């Protein structure tokens, strides 16, 4: 089988599939494995899987070291996948490669949203880049992107780079977030912004960038409840660098090309609880499916995809039995997996990852509802609902029995009693 992408999802999938007896080829377009992890030099990785606090490079190194009998091609770009599963790739060393496989794992990850996707007015000066680009410049190339830095968006990479640049001697003037709440993890707000005395401005956005060759300032405005900038209350902030930490988009060109169904809510492929896409034999895991908060969760999804892909490659077919669709409903933005393979779930339980569509600081309940009968079939109490923090819901086999009655499920968050 073939795994496309050597980040945390692809490494875990390749490792798990090899352990399960499959012959695996791993393809990555970068010169080294690990995906984004080698540039994520901060700690906080591995707390879930290894019960210790590793940095991104160390976490990647563990997975690379235990990879085993996997055939690896780096600096190799997949450009097409034919039905019947022939993967076309090219590299300077190998030329054009055509690899026939029985099963495939898509683990291409995601990319950052850029200035062009935000439509910020103003000039086109140097000094505007994504937070991940700045991270690569500083941590891999040892280059400082600027001296006076503003950050648009309170995503995790933005907050981590705020601290990193402050530590390297830059003046970080503030983080501006259009939403009324934080978009990254709480721990990053505390350990990156509070620790370094960097102000966070909620309900504020950048409406203009100024400067000829180099960025000289940004124009910031508060926004109203409907996120409309209040130009009358706008002010100018001096900065030579603007980092964008405004969201990530799953990278699904190959997924679309093989005709797999995409979920508009996640912008990734629709997957079953086996992480199989709508194309038989094609599995997917990690940020290509939906954007995760933690690399550990990406690795766990990769393991699941790798195990089932190996089972498929070693003579299986897609599972029979009932498949139950889950659709996001009130206060839920997205659910993964979108399809439960019922015989599996009745035997092993189900693990759901959900993104809240509302921000509520207080108890609420998460429910799975029979779409036709409006009957609650499973529920879980939550201490709060924050869009920035993925909700994990493990439904044990005993509780999953009730799901069998429905033909389609709705996932909801009920706020208040």
């Amino acid at each position: 089988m073939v795994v496309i992408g050597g980040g945390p999802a692809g490494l875990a999938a390749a490792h798990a599939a090899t352990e399960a007896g499959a012959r695996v080829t791993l393809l990555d377009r970068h010169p080294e494995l690990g995906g984004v992890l080698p540039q994520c030099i901060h700690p906080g990785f591995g707390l879930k899987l290894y019960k210790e606090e590793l940095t991104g490079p160390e976490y990647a190194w563990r997975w690379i070291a235990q990879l085993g009998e996997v055939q690896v091609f780096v600096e190799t770009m997949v450009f097409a996948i034919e039905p019947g599963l022939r993967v076309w790739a090219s590299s300077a060393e190998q030329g054009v490669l055509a690899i026939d496989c029985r099963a495939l794992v898509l683990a291409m990850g995601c990319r950052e949203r850029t200035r062009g996707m935000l439509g910020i007015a103003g000039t086109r000066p140097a000094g505007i880049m994504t937070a991940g680009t700045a991270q690569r410049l500083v941590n891999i190339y040892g280059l400082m992107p600027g001296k006076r830095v503003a950050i648009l968006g309170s995503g995790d990479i933005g907050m981590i780079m705020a601290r990193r640049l402050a530590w390297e001697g830059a003046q970080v003037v503030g983080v501006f977030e259009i939403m009324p709440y934080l978009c990254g993890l709480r721990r990053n707000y505390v350990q990156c912004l509070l620790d370094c005395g960097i102000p966070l401005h909620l309900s504020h956005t950048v409406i203009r960038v100024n400067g000829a060759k180099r960025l000289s300032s940004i124009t910031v405005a508060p926004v109203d409840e409907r996120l409309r900038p209040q130009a009358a209350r706008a002010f100018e902030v001096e900065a030579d660098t603007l980092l964008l930490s405004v969201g990530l988009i799953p990278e699904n060109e190959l997924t679309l090309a093989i005709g797999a169904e995409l979920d508009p809510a996640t912008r990734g492929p629709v997957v079953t609880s086996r992480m199989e896409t709508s194309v038989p034999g094609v599995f997917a895991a990690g940020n290509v499916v939906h954007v995760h908060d933690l690399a550990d969760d990406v690795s766990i999804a990769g393991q699941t995809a790798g195990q089932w892909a190996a089972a498929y490659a070693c003579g299986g077919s897609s599972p029979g039995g009932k498949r139950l669709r889950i659709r996001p409903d009130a206060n839920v933005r997205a659910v993964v997996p979108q399809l439960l393979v019922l015989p599996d779930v009745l035997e092993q339980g189900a693990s759901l990852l959900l993104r809240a569509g509302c921000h509520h600081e207080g108890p609420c309940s998460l429910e799975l509802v029979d779409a036709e009968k409006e009957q609650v079939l499973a529920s879980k109490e939550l201490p709060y609902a924050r869009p920035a923090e993925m909700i994990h819901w493990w439904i044990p086999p005993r509780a999953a029995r009730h799901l069998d009655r429905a033909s389609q499920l709705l996932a909801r968050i009920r706020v208040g009693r």
Partner: protein
Amino acid sequence: MLKVRTAAGRLAVEGNACRRGLSYAQEEVLNPRRVLTTTVPVVGGKRPVVPVRSVAPIPKESIPQALSELRQLFVRAPVKVHQVIAQSVAGTGIAVVATWPVLAIEAEEEVQREKEAG
């Protein structure tokens, strides 16, 4: 939400979901510590810098001192994962180690063979 009250020099922690939460809250109030990560320049390597970490969390107030000490250093390639870069930073007795390998430019193939040999 984790809450810590201080009264008469004692701490009362509430809202923790597990025992780790309790010790985290106590330490965060009394003696906040962080794992320090940064990069150190590499001479003769395939990369200009190598990422490093303190092997254990260091006191928060020692971070500026530790950073300025690390800014004075450079290492010669090849650098191995968990190779010690500094024995102790900011007088803490806590070492700083590399977190990613950097191959040397000239001896690149040799290092590769050495790595494969274990």
